[in-house]
């Protein structure tokens, strides 16, 4: 894995996207996340807002931006559930921050690294979610790690398709 200094990586490439992509990609992810489980039923092993958060955090490499995006996506997801608002928010805030920080340090142009990061950050998001729900809030919640593992694998598969597609939408100078 190539490790580079933060400033060098930032100077190497600054990706920019049409404003419509910034507006629509998170929105479409949130809507599809709320709608698709009706068809996948119990097999909805994916988290589209998390994949989008990881992608934009990695390519922008600005931790504040990544944290804010993660917080926004997580809070929105929480608002659609019956759970307290903020559990997903905290998990995805950390995920956005870490993805952006890693984007500075490592070569995220490598597709394999991006997929590996998506898998790792998906599992980390589940761990933080459970920690906040049980540890911080003291609420009871049954948990299936197998489902979380499947979800991480599902997110990785979606990233495999989605990341190259979003790469094509960037503005090239």
């Amino acid at each position, binding site marked *: 894995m190539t490790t580079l200094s933060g400033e060098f990586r930032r100077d190497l490439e600054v990706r920019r996207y049409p404003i419509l992509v910034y507006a629509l990609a998170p*929105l479409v992810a*949130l*809507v599809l*996340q*709320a*709608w698709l*489980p*009706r068809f996948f*039923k*119990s097999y*909805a*092993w994916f988290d589209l807002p998390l994949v989008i958060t990881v992608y934009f955090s990695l390519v922008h490499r600005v*931790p*504040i931006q990544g*944290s*804010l995006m993660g*917080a926004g996506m997580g*809070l*929105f*997801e929480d*608002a*659609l*559930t*019956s*759970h*307290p*608002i*903020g*559990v*997903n*928010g*905290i998990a995805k*805030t*950390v995920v956005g*921050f870490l993805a952006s*920080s890693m984007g500075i340090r490592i070569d995220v142009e490598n597709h394999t690294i991006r997929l590996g990061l998506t898998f790792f950050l998906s599992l980390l998001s589940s761990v933080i*979610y459970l920690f*906040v729900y049980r540890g*911080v*809030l*003291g*609420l*009871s*919640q*049954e*948990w*299936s790690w197998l*489902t979380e593992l499947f*979800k991480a694998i599902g997110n990785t598969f979606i990233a495999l398709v989605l990341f190259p597609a979003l790469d094509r939408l960037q503005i090239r100078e």
Partner: protein
Amino acid sequence: MDSFFIRYRNLVVLLTLLVVQIVGLAVQVRRTGAGRNSLDPQDGASVRLIRLWADAVVTPPERLIHQSKMGIVGMWQGYIDLRHTQAENQELQKTIDRMRLEQAALLEDAKQGQRLQALVNFREKYIYKTVAAQAIGASGSDQSKVFYLDKGSADGLDRDMAVITPDGIVGKIRDVFPHTAQVLAINDQTSGAGVILETTRIRGILRGNALGQPQIVGILADQRIQPGEKVLTAGGDLIFPRGLPVGVVEKIVRDPEPDRDGFIDVIVKPAAHLDQLDEVLVITSTESRFPPEQEKDLATSEALKGPEAAAIAEQKKASAIMAERLPGLIDPNLPPDQQPLLDSSSPTTLTHPPMALHPDRFTPGGIPQPKADQPSADNTEAKPATPATPPRNPQP
């Protein structure tokens, strides 16, 4: 100081975001009397506002997608795929006629039940009014089994109303917005419905587990509970009317809590297809009387049955009342198949009294010794005009 914030601005922003969200979470959780934390069932104003915003963003596209899908399906079913419709229509008409007759009989029983309940000051609540709604979206999280309806407070929906399908119960309305409503399904971990096992009459609380299966939690182990037993609503939760189908027992597992030996969880296979919900009914009103539609159906059914059937029913009712008044010839200590009146193996249905310990002349079948100063039995029989003893039963 400025340089500190500039240097660590990323971490400062991260920590600020985390602290704000943790404080926000603390507001939403409350401590119960039992020393446990629980989620406040009623969202605060600010939390509700956030949920309303999220709903306002997600619902319009979901509604559009759903309506497009329903339009295509409707066009296919209404105009293109019309094979066998005529035959199906005739079959359905026969089914309706048959069910009307059955319904009339059942409603008659229910009315009688109402009269009896009135005597003991108990009032059964019947589903009086329902609103049909379409499920248009879900929470998107496998940890939260909620879904959204395309109807809201503008259509008469309110919090804690029961949501059902003709197959069984689905959940209850958790939150209601002007044009949408959030439904908490029975397989969510935070849900709770009072249920009863049909045969064993064991009561419990139904809620979801981590795998999204509804289960009756924390009941004492009982060998009588077997897979396949029906589960019904108990009616004690003041949300679901009593007697609605919930599902059947799928399997019994030990309570996973380490300090609860002897307790079991009963996994229930839900009667309603919780994963394939399209149209549901929201019970907006329950009354202690039948809704007008059912009364109308009852009248139609009675008319269909005709006066002859009504006369037969009256005769049956009169016979039943008479049977209740007559003394019973059934021995309560014997099982039903050994009751003397029902024993087909015996050629005669007559039973004989046990032999008397000290027989006298009044004892049936007894042969008293004639005394010297009294007329003999033969003499007595020779004077039938003045019988001194009651007539004896002939011995077989």
